[in-house]
């Protein structure tokens, strides 16, 4: 009985408490399957993450599951767009579940909640619909400008 108890306690010690060298369960998993996609992302599971997608949208929420292609399921996710020039941001009102196809993912990172709270001090929150339309317009403008530049360069006989 004592032996059984000690075994149980030993397991709890491994999996719940960081040991002297700060090992968590995912670190142990990482060591047994090094250099795989799963090992890289598993540390973010059940943490608040920021997923940046192709096109510039950021989705902030709790990562629940993922697979080897980088498909993600984000719980209670909100979408946020930033305008650094005017120090404004827009955030969607209703937290939703996001299922993101991996090919659209640019990067994913885990948020330090303390810094996250402070990071938007001094920023003005604007209406999400307006912000989102402005964001899309900015992207469109940039695209058109690039196209115009390319045409100008083409007139000189070169390609971009």
């Amino acid at each position, binding site marked *: 009985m004592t032996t059984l108890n000690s075994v149980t306690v030993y397991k709890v010690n491994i999996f719940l408490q960081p040991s002297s060298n700060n090992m968590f369960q995912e670190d142990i998993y990482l060591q047994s399957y090094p250099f795989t996609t799963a090992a890289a992302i598993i540390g973010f599971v059940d943490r608040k993450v920021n997923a940046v997608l192709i096109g510039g949208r950021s989705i902030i929420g709790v990562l629940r599951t993922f697979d080897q292609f980088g498909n993600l399921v984000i719980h209670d996710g909100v979408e946020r767009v930033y305008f650094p020039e005017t120090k404004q941001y827009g955030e969607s009102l209703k937290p939703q579940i996001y299922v993101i196809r991996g090919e659209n993912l640019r*990067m994913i990172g885990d948020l330090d909640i303390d810094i996250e709270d402070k990071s938007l001090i001094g920023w003005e929150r604007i209406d999400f619909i307006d912000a989102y339309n402005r964001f899309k317009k900015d992207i469109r403008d940039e695209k058109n400008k690039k196209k115009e530049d390319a045409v100008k360069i083409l007139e000189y006989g070169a390609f971009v």
Partner: protein
Amino acid sequence: MLFFSFFKTLVDQEITVELKNDIQIVGTLLSVDQYLNLKLDNIQVDTEKYPQFLALKSIFLRGTNIRYIHLNPSTVDTNLLQDASRREAMASAGEKIAGR
């Protein structure tokens, strides 16, 4: 698989990654996988321009979005890499490797 092995030798080195949307990220390489997805720790980004990186500590970058990786020349043995890439190219072409 050569470059997968190559990046595995760079783990724990500081690298600069340039993404296809022109963001430059400096960080310590934590892990790399077969698609050359990278995991970086202690990242430094121009947060004035990209505020979404403010609260991030370690990030996972999808390999398909990476344009360049800037490496410290002292961490790369170019002769060895050249040799290895030629060997792999010859092996995949089905030719006999000289001297073997």
